[in-house]
Protein backbone atom coordinates (compact mmCIF):
# COMPACT_ATOMS: atom_id res chain seq x y z
CA UNK A 1 0.00 0.00 0.00
CA UNK A 2 1.49 3.29 -1.01
CA UNK A 3 1.42 6.29 1.30
CA UNK A 4 -0.79 9.15 0.40
CA UNK A 5 1.39 12.14 -0.43
CA UNK A 6 1.16 14.95 2.04
CA UNK A 7 -0.35 18.15 0.76
CA UNK A 8 0.93 21.29 2.40
CA UNK A 9 -1.80 23.54 3.62
CA UNK A 10 -2.74 26.17 1.12
CA UNK A 11 -1.48 29.48 2.46
CA UNK A 12 -4.24 31.96 3.03
CA UNK A 13 -3.79 34.89 0.71
CA UNK A 14 -3.11 37.88 3.00
CA UNK A 15 -5.01 41.07 2.36
CA UNK A 16 -3.36 44.13 0.86
CA UNK A 17 -3.08 45.99 4.16
CA UNK A 18 -1.67 42.89 5.86
CA UNK A 19 0.96 42.53 3.11
CA UNK A 20 1.94 46.15 3.48
CA UNK A 21 2.30 45.72 7.24
CA UNK A 22 4.61 42.78 6.69
CA UNK A 23 6.83 44.66 4.28
CA UNK A 24 10.33 45.03 5.72
CA UNK A 25 10.62 48.68 4.79
CA UNK A 26 7.30 49.54 6.40
CA UNK A 27 8.26 47.64 9.55
CA UNK A 28 11.52 49.55 9.69
CA UNK A 29 9.95 52.99 9.31
CA UNK A 30 11.21 54.13 12.71
CA UNK A 31 14.75 52.95 11.98
CA UNK A 32 14.72 54.81 8.66
CA UNK A 33 13.25 58.00 10.13
CA UNK A 34 15.74 57.98 13.02
CA UNK A 35 18.63 57.31 10.64
CA UNK A 36 17.61 60.30 8.51
CA UNK A 37 17.12 62.55 11.50
CA UNK A 38 20.35 61.52 13.23
CA UNK A 39 22.23 61.75 9.94
CA UNK A 40 21.10 65.35 9.53
CA UNK A 41 22.00 66.12 13.17
CA UNK A 42 25.49 64.65 12.72
CA UNK A 43 25.98 66.62 9.51
CA UNK A 44 25.14 69.75 11.50
CA UNK A 45 27.57 68.85 14.27
CA UNK A 46 30.25 68.14 11.68
CA UNK A 47 29.71 71.47 9.90
CA UNK A 48 29.98 73.28 13.21
CA UNK A 49 33.02 71.46 14.61
CA UNK A 50 35.08 70.44 11.57
CA UNK A 51 36.91 73.80 11.22
CA UNK A 52 37.79 73.73 14.92
CA UNK A 53 39.15 70.17 14.68
CA UNK A 54 41.14 71.04 11.56
CA UNK A 55 42.62 74.06 13.38
CA UNK A 56 43.62 71.79 16.29
CA UNK A 57 45.40 69.47 13.88
CA UNK A 58 47.19 72.35 12.17
CA UNK A 59 48.32 73.65 15.56
CA UNK A 60 49.65 70.23 16.47
CA UNK A 61 51.41 70.01 13.11
CA UNK A 62 53.25 73.29 13.74
CA UNK A 63 54.22 72.14 17.23
CA UNK A 64 55.54 68.82 15.98
CA UNK A 65 57.44 70.02 12.88
CA UNK A 66 60.75 70.82 14.69
CA UNK A 67 60.68 67.42 16.38
CA UNK A 68 59.96 65.57 13.14
CA UNK A 69 62.76 67.31 11.25
CA UNK A 70 65.43 67.69 13.91
CA UNK A 71 64.60 64.91 16.35
CA UNK A 72 63.40 65.63 19.87
CA UNK A 73 66.85 66.44 21.32
CA UNK A 74 67.88 69.03 18.75
CA UNK A 75 64.37 70.48 18.70
CA UNK A 76 64.49 70.97 22.46
CA UNK A 77 67.94 72.52 22.24
CA UNK A 78 66.69 75.00 19.65
CA UNK A 79 63.67 75.82 21.80
CA UNK A 80 65.89 76.40 24.84
CA UNK A 81 67.90 78.91 22.86
CA UNK A 82 64.62 80.73 22.36
CA UNK A 83 64.67 80.07 18.65
CA UNK A 84 62.18 78.35 16.44
CA UNK A 85 62.05 77.04 12.90
CA UNK A 86 60.31 79.29 10.43
CA UNK A 87 57.56 77.21 8.84
CA UNK A 88 55.92 78.06 5.56
CA UNK A 89 53.01 76.00 4.20
CA UNK A 90 52.67 75.10 0.50
CA UNK A 91 50.38 72.87 -1.50
CA UNK A 92 51.76 70.51 -4.10
CA UNK A 93 49.47 68.83 -6.61
CA UNK A 94 50.56 65.53 -8.11
CA UNK A 95 48.93 63.86 -11.12
CA UNK A 96 48.74 60.12 -10.59
CA UNK A 97 46.74 57.57 -12.54
CA UNK A 98 44.55 60.39 -13.83
CA UNK A 99 43.83 61.53 -10.31
CA UNK A 100 44.98 64.75 -8.80
CA UNK A 101 46.38 64.40 -5.29
CA UNK A 102 47.00 67.57 -3.32
CA UNK A 103 49.58 67.44 -0.54
CA UNK A 104 50.15 70.06 2.13
CA UNK A 105 53.88 70.64 2.48
CA UNK A 106 55.56 72.57 5.27
CA UNK A 107 58.91 74.13 4.43
CA UNK A 108 60.97 74.62 7.60
CA UNK A 109 63.96 76.94 7.78
CA UNK A 110 66.39 77.90 10.53
CA UNK A 111 66.19 81.49 11.81
CA UNK A 112 69.21 82.33 9.64
CA UNK A 113 67.29 81.26 6.54
CA UNK A 114 69.01 77.94 5.94
CA UNK A 115 66.63 75.15 4.89
CA UNK A 116 66.04 72.68 7.75
CA UNK A 117 63.79 70.21 5.99
CA UNK A 118 60.30 69.43 4.71
CA UNK A 119 57.24 67.95 6.32
CA UNK A 120 54.44 66.47 4.21
CA UNK A 121 50.95 65.64 5.41
CA UNK A 122 49.49 62.47 3.97
CA UNK A 123 46.81 59.95 4.78
CA UNK A 124 45.54 56.52 3.80
CA UNK A 125 43.33 53.68 4.91
CA UNK A 126 44.45 51.87 8.06
CA UNK A 127 43.01 48.72 9.62
CA UNK A 128 40.15 50.54 11.35
CA UNK A 129 39.92 54.01 9.88
CA UNK A 130 41.90 56.63 8.02
CA UNK A 131 45.46 57.17 9.30
CA UNK A 132 46.87 60.68 8.97
CA UNK A 133 50.64 61.09 9.01
CA UNK A 134 53.25 63.82 9.01
CA UNK A 135 56.37 62.73 7.13
CA UNK A 136 59.67 64.60 7.54
CA UNK A 137 62.38 64.89 4.86
CA UNK A 138 65.93 66.26 4.95
CA UNK A 139 66.55 69.43 2.87
CA UNK A 140 67.90 67.36 -0.03
CA UNK A 141 64.86 65.01 0.16
CA UNK A 142 67.07 61.90 -0.03
CA UNK A 143 66.40 60.78 3.56
CA UNK A 144 63.40 60.63 5.89
CA UNK A 145 63.85 62.42 9.20
CA UNK A 146 60.89 60.79 10.93
CA UNK A 147 57.13 60.39 10.98
CA UNK A 148 54.35 61.43 13.34
CA UNK A 149 50.80 60.10 13.56
CA UNK A 150 48.23 62.92 13.54
CA UNK A 151 45.09 60.80 13.61
CA UNK A 152 44.33 57.08 13.90
CA UNK A 153 41.74 54.75 15.32
CA UNK A 154 43.67 51.47 15.18
CA UNK A 155 43.02 48.61 17.62
CA UNK A 156 44.04 49.58 21.16
CA UNK A 157 47.02 47.59 22.38
CA UNK A 158 47.94 46.34 18.91
CA UNK A 159 47.59 48.67 15.93
CA UNK A 160 47.64 51.84 17.97
CA UNK A 161 51.30 51.13 18.79
CA UNK A 162 52.04 52.94 15.51
CA UNK A 163 51.94 56.13 17.60
CA UNK A 164 54.77 55.02 19.90
CA UNK A 165 58.13 56.68 19.46
CA UNK A 166 59.86 53.28 19.55
CA UNK A 167 58.06 52.13 16.43
CA UNK A 168 58.04 55.47 14.60
CA UNK A 169 61.77 55.88 15.16
CA UNK A 170 62.44 53.10 12.66
CA UNK A 171 61.53 55.54 9.88
CA UNK A 172 64.21 58.06 10.84
CA UNK A 173 67.20 58.06 8.48
CA UNK A 174 65.63 55.75 5.89
CA UNK A 175 66.65 56.56 2.31
CA UNK A 176 63.89 57.73 -0.01
CA UNK A 177 65.32 56.18 -3.19
CA UNK A 178 63.86 52.69 -2.63
CA UNK A 179 60.50 51.82 -1.08
CA UNK A 180 60.38 50.80 2.57
CA UNK A 181 59.52 47.18 3.31
CA UNK A 182 57.75 45.72 6.32
CA UNK A 183 59.25 42.57 7.80
CA UNK A 184 58.27 40.27 10.62
CA UNK A 185 60.95 39.30 13.08
CA UNK A 186 63.92 41.58 12.79
CA UNK A 187 64.62 44.21 10.15
CA UNK A 188 67.99 43.38 8.63
CA UNK A 189 68.15 45.29 5.32
CA UNK A 190 68.65 49.03 5.43
CA UNK A 191 65.19 49.93 4.14
CA UNK A 192 63.13 47.63 6.33
CA UNK A 193 60.96 48.31 9.36
CA UNK A 194 59.69 45.73 11.83
CA UNK A 195 55.96 45.05 11.82
CA UNK A 196 54.18 45.44 15.15
CA UNK A 197 53.36 41.97 16.48
CA UNK A 198 49.67 41.34 15.91
CA UNK A 199 49.25 44.47 13.82
CA UNK A 200 50.85 43.69 10.47
CA UNK A 201 48.06 45.48 8.60
CA UNK A 202 48.45 48.72 10.57
CA UNK A 203 52.23 48.54 10.08
CA UNK A 204 51.81 47.98 6.34
CA UNK A 205 49.27 50.80 6.09
CA UNK A 206 51.62 53.34 7.62
CA UNK A 207 54.52 52.14 5.47
CA UNK A 208 52.30 52.23 2.39
CA UNK A 209 51.24 55.83 3.10
CA UNK A 210 54.90 56.81 3.53
CA UNK A 211 55.97 55.02 0.34
CA UNK A 212 53.19 56.65 -1.69
CA UNK A 213 53.98 60.10 -0.37
CA UNK A 214 57.70 59.61 -1.01
CA UNK A 215 57.06 58.41 -4.56
CA UNK A 216 54.74 61.35 -5.25
CA UNK A 217 56.77 64.06 -3.59
CA UNK A 218 60.44 63.23 -4.15
CA UNK A 219 60.44 64.95 -7.55
CA UNK A 220 58.46 68.09 -6.66
CA UNK A 221 60.27 68.59 -3.34
CA UNK A 222 63.72 68.15 -4.93
CA UNK A 223 62.73 70.74 -7.52
CA UNK A 224 61.58 73.11 -4.76
CA UNK A 225 64.83 72.55 -2.85
CA UNK A 226 66.89 73.26 -5.97
CA UNK A 227 64.88 76.37 -6.76
CA UNK A 228 65.62 77.63 -3.26
CA UNK A 229 69.33 76.94 -3.62
CA UNK A 230 69.63 79.32 -6.59
Amino acid at each position, binding site marked *: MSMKPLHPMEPIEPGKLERLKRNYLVQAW*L*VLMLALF*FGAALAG*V*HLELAPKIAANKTNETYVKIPEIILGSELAEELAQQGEALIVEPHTVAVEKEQRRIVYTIYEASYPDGKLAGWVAKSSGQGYADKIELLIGFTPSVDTLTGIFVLDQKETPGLGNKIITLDWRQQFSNLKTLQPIEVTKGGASDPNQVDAITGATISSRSVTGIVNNAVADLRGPLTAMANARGK
Partner: protein
Amino acid sequence: MAVAPTPAERFIQGILPENPVYRQLLGLCPTLAVTNGLQAALTMAGAVAFVLFCANIVTSTIRHLLKPHLRIVIFTLIIATFVTITDRFLAAYMYGMSKLLGPYIPLIIVNCIIICRCEVCASRQSVFAAGADALGQATGFALALVSIAAVRELLGSGMLFSVQVLPESWPNWVIMILPPGAFMTLGLLVGAVNWFEQRRSEQAESERG
Protein backbone atom coordinates in the same frame (compact mmCIF):
# COMPACT_ATOMS: atom_id res chain seq x y z
CA MET B 1 5.25 40.57 37.72
CA ALA B 2 7.28 42.66 40.09
CA VAL B 3 6.53 46.35 40.29
CA ALA B 4 8.99 48.42 38.27
CA PRO B 5 11.45 50.37 40.44
CA THR B 6 10.66 54.04 41.00
CA PRO B 7 12.97 56.75 39.58
CA ALA B 8 14.55 57.28 43.01
CA GLU B 9 15.16 53.56 43.39
CA ARG B 10 16.69 53.43 39.90
CA PHE B 11 19.07 56.26 40.81
CA ILE B 12 20.20 54.75 44.14
CA GLN B 13 20.51 51.23 42.72
CA GLY B 14 22.90 52.36 40.03
CA ILE B 15 25.43 53.91 42.38
CA LEU B 16 26.35 50.95 44.59
CA PRO B 17 23.82 48.09 44.89
CA GLU B 18 23.80 47.60 41.10
CA ASN B 19 27.07 49.34 40.30
CA PRO B 20 27.72 48.67 36.60
CA VAL B 21 31.37 47.73 37.13
CA TYR B 22 31.55 46.23 40.62
CA ARG B 23 28.20 44.46 40.75
CA GLN B 24 27.24 43.85 37.10
CA LEU B 25 30.80 43.57 35.70
CA LEU B 26 29.79 45.52 32.59
CA GLY B 27 31.82 48.05 30.61
CA LEU B 28 35.09 46.43 31.60
CA CYS B 29 36.97 47.39 28.42
CA PRO B 30 37.16 51.13 29.22
CA THR B 31 37.42 50.27 32.93
CA LEU B 32 40.66 48.43 32.28
CA ALA B 33 41.97 50.56 29.44
CA VAL B 34 41.66 54.20 30.48
CA THR B 35 42.17 54.02 34.23
CA ASN B 36 45.93 54.64 34.35
CA GLY B 37 45.25 58.27 35.16
CA LEU B 38 42.42 60.15 36.86
CA GLN B 39 41.99 62.76 34.12
CA ALA B 40 41.45 60.16 31.40
CA ALA B 41 39.14 58.18 33.68
CA LEU B 42 36.99 61.22 34.47
CA THR B 43 36.77 62.23 30.80
CA MET B 44 35.65 58.72 29.91
CA ALA B 45 33.13 58.72 32.75
CA GLY B 46 31.77 62.07 31.53
CA ALA B 47 31.50 60.88 27.95
CA VAL B 48 29.70 57.69 29.01
CA ALA B 49 27.38 59.71 31.27
CA PHE B 50 26.39 62.02 28.40
CA VAL B 51 25.77 59.16 25.97
CA LEU B 52 23.93 57.06 28.56
CA PHE B 53 21.67 59.93 29.61
CA CYS B 54 20.79 60.98 26.05
CA ALA B 55 20.30 57.39 24.86
CA ASN B 56 18.04 56.57 27.83
CA ILE B 57 15.94 59.71 27.33
CA VAL B 58 15.49 59.19 23.57
CA THR B 59 14.79 55.46 23.94
CA SER B 60 12.23 56.08 26.67
CA THR B 61 10.53 58.80 24.58
CA ILE B 62 9.99 56.45 21.65
CA ARG B 63 9.48 53.28 23.71
CA HIS B 64 5.86 52.80 22.56
CA LEU B 65 6.95 52.78 18.93
CA LEU B 66 9.62 50.10 19.36
CA LYS B 67 9.08 46.73 17.68
CA PRO B 68 10.63 43.82 19.60
CA HIS B 69 12.69 42.51 16.69
CA LEU B 70 13.99 45.94 15.67
CA ARG B 71 14.74 47.39 19.10
CA ILE B 72 18.45 46.51 19.20
CA VAL B 73 19.04 48.23 15.85
CA ILE B 74 17.37 51.34 17.18
CA PHE B 75 19.32 51.30 20.46
CA THR B 76 22.56 50.99 18.50
CA LEU B 77 21.58 53.79 16.14
CA ILE B 78 20.76 56.14 19.02
CA ILE B 79 23.95 55.27 20.94
CA ALA B 80 26.19 55.58 17.87
CA THR B 81 24.80 59.04 17.13
CA PHE B 82 25.54 60.41 20.59
CA VAL B 83 28.95 58.75 20.68
CA THR B 84 29.88 60.39 17.38
CA ILE B 85 28.78 63.77 18.73
CA THR B 86 30.89 63.20 21.86
CA ASP B 87 33.90 62.13 19.79
CA ARG B 88 33.73 65.23 17.58
CA PHE B 89 33.14 67.49 20.57
CA LEU B 90 36.24 66.16 22.35
CA ALA B 91 38.34 66.50 19.18
CA ALA B 92 37.22 70.12 18.88
CA TYR B 93 37.43 71.31 22.49
CA MET B 94 39.63 68.80 24.35
CA TYR B 95 42.06 67.84 21.60
CA GLY B 96 44.82 66.46 23.86
CA MET B 97 42.38 64.28 25.78
CA SER B 98 40.79 63.16 22.51
CA LYS B 99 44.17 61.96 21.25
CA LEU B 100 44.94 60.28 24.58
CA LEU B 101 41.68 58.35 24.64
CA GLY B 102 41.91 57.68 20.89
CA PRO B 103 39.67 54.83 19.78
CA TYR B 104 38.17 54.32 23.25
CA ILE B 105 35.68 57.15 22.66
CA PRO B 106 34.22 55.60 19.46
CA LEU B 107 34.27 52.27 21.31
CA ILE B 108 31.65 53.62 23.76
CA ILE B 109 29.20 52.48 21.07
CA VAL B 110 29.82 48.89 22.17
CA ASN B 111 29.86 49.69 25.89
CA CYS B 112 27.30 47.19 27.15
CA ILE B 113 26.28 49.34 30.14
CA ILE B 114 24.44 51.69 27.81
CA ILE B 115 22.60 49.14 25.69
CA CYS B 116 21.81 47.22 28.90
CA ARG B 117 20.11 50.30 30.44
CA CYS B 118 18.17 50.94 27.20
CA GLU B 119 16.94 47.35 27.31
CA VAL B 120 16.32 46.98 31.05
CA CYS B 121 14.96 50.40 31.93
CA ALA B 122 14.52 52.98 29.19
CA SER B 123 12.51 50.82 26.80
CA ARG B 124 10.05 49.97 29.59
CA GLN B 125 9.80 52.96 31.90
CA SER B 126 8.94 56.65 31.79
CA VAL B 127 11.36 59.33 30.66
CA PHE B 128 11.79 60.42 34.26
CA ALA B 129 12.72 56.94 35.47
CA ALA B 130 15.04 56.46 32.49
CA GLY B 131 16.81 59.76 33.24
CA ALA B 132 17.22 58.89 36.93
CA ASP B 133 18.47 55.45 35.96
CA ALA B 134 21.05 56.94 33.58
CA LEU B 135 22.28 59.38 36.25
CA GLY B 136 22.57 56.60 38.85
CA GLN B 137 24.39 54.18 36.56
CA ALA B 138 26.66 56.95 35.26
CA THR B 139 27.54 57.95 38.82
CA GLY B 140 28.26 54.31 39.63
CA PHE B 141 30.46 53.98 36.55
CA ALA B 142 32.32 57.20 37.40
CA LEU B 143 32.87 56.00 40.98
CA ALA B 144 34.28 52.72 39.72
CA LEU B 145 36.60 54.36 37.17
CA VAL B 146 37.81 56.98 39.63
CA SER B 147 38.49 54.44 42.39
CA ILE B 148 40.51 52.19 40.06
CA ALA B 149 42.33 55.12 38.44
CA ALA B 150 43.21 56.62 41.84
CA VAL B 151 44.87 53.40 42.98
CA ARG B 152 46.72 52.93 39.70
CA GLU B 153 47.90 56.52 39.27
CA LEU B 154 48.98 56.79 42.90
CA LEU B 155 50.95 53.55 43.02
CA GLY B 156 52.12 53.68 39.42
CA SER B 157 53.40 57.23 39.23
CA GLY B 158 53.02 58.65 42.74
CA MET B 159 50.57 61.24 41.44
CA LEU B 160 46.87 62.13 41.57
CA PHE B 161 45.48 64.27 38.72
CA SER B 162 49.10 64.53 37.45
CA VAL B 163 50.16 66.24 40.69
CA GLN B 164 52.93 64.58 42.72
CA VAL B 165 51.39 63.30 45.97
CA LEU B 166 53.73 60.61 47.23
CA PRO B 167 57.30 61.59 48.19
CA GLU B 168 59.82 61.57 45.32
CA SER B 169 61.47 58.55 46.96
CA TRP B 170 58.41 56.43 46.07
CA PRO B 171 59.58 53.78 43.57
CA ASN B 172 56.87 54.08 40.91
CA TRP B 173 55.28 50.69 40.39
CA VAL B 174 55.26 50.84 36.60
CA ILE B 175 53.23 47.64 36.41
CA MET B 176 50.24 49.55 37.86
CA ILE B 177 50.20 51.82 34.80
CA LEU B 178 50.49 48.82 32.46
CA PRO B 179 47.56 46.46 31.66
CA PRO B 180 48.42 43.89 34.39
CA GLY B 181 47.98 46.64 36.98
CA ALA B 182 44.46 47.25 35.67
CA PHE B 183 43.49 43.60 36.03
CA MET B 184 45.00 43.30 39.51
CA THR B 185 43.38 46.50 40.80
CA LEU B 186 39.98 45.62 39.34
CA GLY B 187 40.17 42.08 40.74
CA LEU B 188 41.12 43.24 44.23
CA LEU B 189 38.48 45.99 44.30
CA VAL B 190 35.72 43.67 43.03
CA GLY B 191 36.80 41.21 45.72
CA ALA B 192 36.67 43.90 48.38
CA VAL B 193 33.20 45.07 47.28
CA ASN B 194 31.94 41.48 47.30
CA TRP B 195 33.38 40.94 50.77
CA PHE B 196 31.64 44.04 52.16
CA GLU B 197 28.40 43.11 50.43
CA GLN B 198 28.52 39.61 51.91
CA ARG B 199 29.23 40.91 55.40
CA ARG B 200 26.40 43.41 55.08
CA SER B 201 23.86 40.81 53.98
CA GLU B 202 24.98 38.41 56.72
CA GLN B 203 24.54 41.16 59.28
CA ALA B 204 21.08 41.99 57.93
CA GLU B 205 20.21 38.30 58.08
CA SER B 206 21.27 37.87 61.70
CA GLU B 207 19.38 41.01 62.72
CA ARG B 208 16.27 39.66 61.09
CA GLY B 209 16.74 36.14 62.48
